[in-house]
């Protein structure tokens, strides 16, 4: 089941390879079918998921039953290394509370992304092949439980992303694409070294061999004494934690490694921005929760405050930058940085409330930011500009658009009743109840205020009042004397058309439903988060020593 959900898009990509490039509609439909297939599978997995099983590590008896679900485990590569025994790499997939929400989110965003890609008309075949490759890599990352496999999927994302930004992007796309590539690769090569070091440090208790299994690595008792990341090897464990953290922080992106993000977002086409913000950024924090923190819990305990500080900086700094933007897409990009700061803050709280808030915020940020970028795309398609002051008074002429924008904007600023509120509230509850992050929580609340400021201000400038004198659209009178908006060389419907509604309405519905009744997601993740907190807790560590 998990294999299918991962490799379905690749299958679609292979089919597309055989379709002549003139058949654009067939190519789009094949990709859409694959994405829907993923969606159906994701729902089936969700339905079959038992929220009472914790995951994170193996069960007390060392088996995976009663821990991970939908496990697929096959030996993939077995190498004879002579004196070093054998190198075992497994094809090892499974989900727990951390990944199930991300699987659902990825499937959802993939479908939205295909719909949003419908208007791409340049080199359609190449675009959708790369899109499918990206889709497989993202899904693979979230379900992989073998570090090697995870790393392959992680790196596999980079190349399609490079081309998707580089070929179909905006004017400055070359710079943005290579910057994205270099930043992420810089982070991940350290991960490669840590991965190799972990391999030599960890023994799978079931087989007695060295292993790449993320599950085995999450239990401290599997680390061998005297190995490079063994219990007493303090220096290397700190070094590994720091470089891994930087690697994942680049993806989040955390200040000061965030500068690739605004560039990438501004240049990327809308669907790629949606994927980037909706899924790719989550991989950073997912990696922290799955790999970085549980592997080196004592270092995590020691660096809570630092992580919290970076989270707070992200929140405030992102909000300030967003406040200064005149380009709507850049504003959304910086708001994304700000909102990922909440995730970091929640993680730094190191308690169930904070971590639940962080994971829930990851999901909500995925849906909300996807919506924001789609809405930016809608107006950019029509007006060919994203400058906030080139509009004004849009609410009167595009009422449906304005309505959905309002939902998304308010969800983003954390209005009660919408999903963003609940996750941010959890993060603050968690951060406030933990001694170490209490002051940071107080400072970070300012982020909400600034968030409200830039969001409401942009809303006001673009949608309220009258048309700006230098706006990019004209107004014509129709037969009844009402003003009708007119964009240059835009032939489609002025307000949202069916395809756009098909993308936006489900997202809006999810945001509202999860804002009112968050239990479908919270119920799934709580057991795993409790387990994660337990794995990270100092009590367990002292018991070990």
């Amino acid at each position: 089941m998990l294999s299918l959900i991962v490799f379905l898009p690749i299958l679609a990509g292979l089919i597309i390879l055989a379709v002549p490039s003139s058949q654009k509609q067939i190519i789009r439909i094949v990709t859409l079918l694959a994405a829907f297939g993923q969606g159906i599978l994701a729902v089936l997995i969700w339905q079959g998921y038992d929220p009472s099983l914790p995951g994170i590590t193996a069960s007390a008896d060392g088996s995976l039953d009663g821990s991970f679900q939908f496990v697929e485990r096959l030996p993939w590569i077995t190498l004879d290394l002579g004196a070093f025994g054998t190198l075992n790499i497994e094809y090892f997939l499974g989900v727990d509370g951390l990944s199930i929400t991300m699987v659902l989110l990825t499937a959802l965003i993939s479908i939205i992304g295909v719909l949003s890609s419908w208007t791409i008309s340049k080199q359609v075949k190449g675009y959708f092949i790369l899109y499918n490759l990206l889709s497989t890599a993202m899904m693979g990352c979230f379900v992989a439980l073998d570090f090697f496999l995870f790393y392959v999927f992680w790196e596999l994302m980079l190349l399609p992303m490079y081309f998707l930004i580089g070929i179909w992007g905006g004017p400055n796309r070359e710079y943005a694409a290579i910057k994205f590539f270099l930043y992420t690769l810089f982070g991940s090569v350290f991960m490669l070294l840590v991965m190799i070091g972990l391999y030599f440090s960890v023994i799978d208790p079931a087989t007695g061999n060295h292993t790449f299994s993320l599950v085995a690595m999450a239990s401290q008792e599997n680390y061998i004494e005297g190995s490079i990341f063994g219990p007493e090897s303090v220096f290397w464990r700190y070094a590994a934690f720091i470089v891994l953290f930087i690697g994942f922080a680049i993806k989040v992106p955390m200040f000061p490694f965030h500068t690739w993000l605004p560039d990438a977002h501004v240049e990327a086409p809308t669907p790629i921005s949606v994927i980037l913000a909706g899924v790719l950024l989550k991989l950073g924090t997912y990696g922290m929760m799955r790999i970085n923190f549980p592997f080196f819990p004592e270092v995590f305990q020691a660096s809570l405050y630092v992580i919290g500080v970076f989270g707070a900086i992200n929140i405030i700094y992102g909000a300030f930058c967003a406040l200064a933007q005149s380009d709507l897409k850049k504003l959304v990009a910086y708001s994304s940085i700000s909102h990922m700061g909440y995730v970091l803050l929640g993680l730094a709280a190191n308690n169930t409330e904070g971590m639940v808030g962080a994971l829930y915020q990851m999901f909500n940020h995925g849906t909300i930011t996807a919506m924001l970028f789609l809405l930016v795309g809608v107006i950019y398609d029509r007006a060919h500009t994203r400058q906030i002051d080139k509009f004004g008074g849009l609410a009167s002429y595009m009422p449906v658009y304005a309505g959905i924008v309002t939902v998304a904007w308010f969800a983003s600023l954390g209005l009660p009743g919408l999903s963003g509120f609940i996750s941010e509230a959890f993060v603050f509850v968690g951060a406030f109840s933990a001694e170490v992050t209490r002051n940071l929580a107080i400072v970070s609340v300012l982020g909400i205020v600034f968030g409200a400021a830039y969001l409401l201000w942009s809303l006001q400038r673009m949608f309220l009042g009258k048309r700006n004198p230098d706006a990019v659209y004209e107004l014509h009178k129709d037969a009844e004397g009402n003003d009708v908006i007119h964009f240059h060389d835009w032939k489609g419907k002025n307000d949202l058309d069916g395809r756009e509604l098909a993308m936006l309405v489900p997202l809006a519905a999810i945001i509202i439903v999860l804002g009112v009744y968050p239990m479908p997601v919270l119920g799934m993740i709580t057991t795993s988060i409790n387990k994660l907190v337990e794995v990270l807790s100092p009590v367990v560590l002292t018991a070990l020593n």
Partner: protein
Amino acid sequence: MYELPSGAEIQAIITTLKTSAVYYLPEIYLSALFLVLILSDLVFRQKKNQLLSIVSLFGLTGSLWFIWKQHSMTGQEIFFGMYVIDEFAIFFKYFFVVSAILTVLMSMTSDELNKRTSGVGEYYVLVVGMVIGMVMMASSTDLLMMLVSMELVSLAAYVLTGYLKRERRSTEASLKYLVYGAVSSGLMIYGFSILYGLTGETNISEISSVLLSRGYDPVTLMIASIMILAGIGYKVGAVPFHFWSPDVYEGAPIPVTALLSVASKAAGFALLIRFFYVAVPHGPDTGAFTPGSEWLLLLMILSVTSMIYGNVVALWQTNVKRLLAYSSIAHAGYILLGIIVMDELGTQATLFYLISYLMMNFGAFLVAVTIANKTGSENIEDYRGLGRRMPLAGAAMTVFLISLVGLPPTVGFIGKLMIFSALLAKGSVFVWLALVGVLTSVISLYYYMLIPLNMYLRESKQPLPDTIRSGMLPQLVTAGLMLLTLYFGIFFTPLSDFARYAVTLFGNQLY
């Protein structure tokens, strides 16, 4: 006063030669092929066809059978200890023959060679001659034999580099190569003679045991080491003995560049590993990490400077061949990392890396040939807009380049993984080397991606036809190499087992 050998002694020598010849069949076969090619060039001179290339293609393929037969003869010293048959040498014999086959395939499709020269007869003869030299380099266990085989390779390479007689840069490259080659060979001979002076032996195992038993003056040995490393470093193209390589790679015909950058480099590594692991005394405690000489430090310097210099200077290149030349300097640095580890895992990683390097580098050069045939240019600027027009070449080039960077799922990634695993398996002593390795590979991403950048992200300045077709043969070979690069990036067990099988080194005292 010199005494003539007695009849019985001569008889014994002849017997040894006779018995040794059985173990020397691949080399004899290749020499016969060499002669057949010369003859067929003379006889069929007038006919402008691919006869010679096809003869050399089949001839080289045939030699694989003779090499395969040698698997049952391993552990054999022949010709009075001048030459050995071991799995290590057999591995490299396969490697060189396969490289030569790919070079011949590439040469058959190259317009540069087939249209702009007076004839390609001697070309294939020289390629086979170079293969003979490299095969002997991998098996030599005697200083004299090493020197002779290395010179054989160099001589063939000088002529091949200057094969485009009418092009100035080709001639210039050839002369440069010759001058640098002569100097570094001279240094190496001097180093060998000092070593001979220290020990009175030319056989590398004997050298090692004499050095150990009798002791030596460390300064003298250091001088000899540096001089010998200059010769080998020149062959593998490691900094600071790399100065010839960018000019030579740029000037030589592309298939020759590919052969030089892969096979000739690998031959240098074969020699280096054998010499370093066998001739250099490593102290009584051979198992532990206590090398008995300063060689390790020298190799580390070579490796680190190669990685940094090659990758950084490549950033400014505008010519694909020059870019790949600097990349090959950098790769020499990565391969040296595997040798520095000095254990089975390190050798295995080195050999694996060489195979992966063979696939990706030949692939990249093959695409460069295909494109040069169509555009007549090797400038990266002239690659603009080609990705869409030559879909296979574009996709394949991208795969080869990300493999050179070392990104999954390609064989180049596994190569780097094995090298870094070998380093980290030693604990924390080599972590800094691994760090240099990964950081320079991030730098390399930038210049490698310049090629896909121009192929896909930029539109050409001149109008180009919508699709550019190339011949059947280059397409097949390109596709084959691309699929292998990807396949072995995901299922690399066979390659890795092959490399593991080949780590057995005759007379090795390290493992």
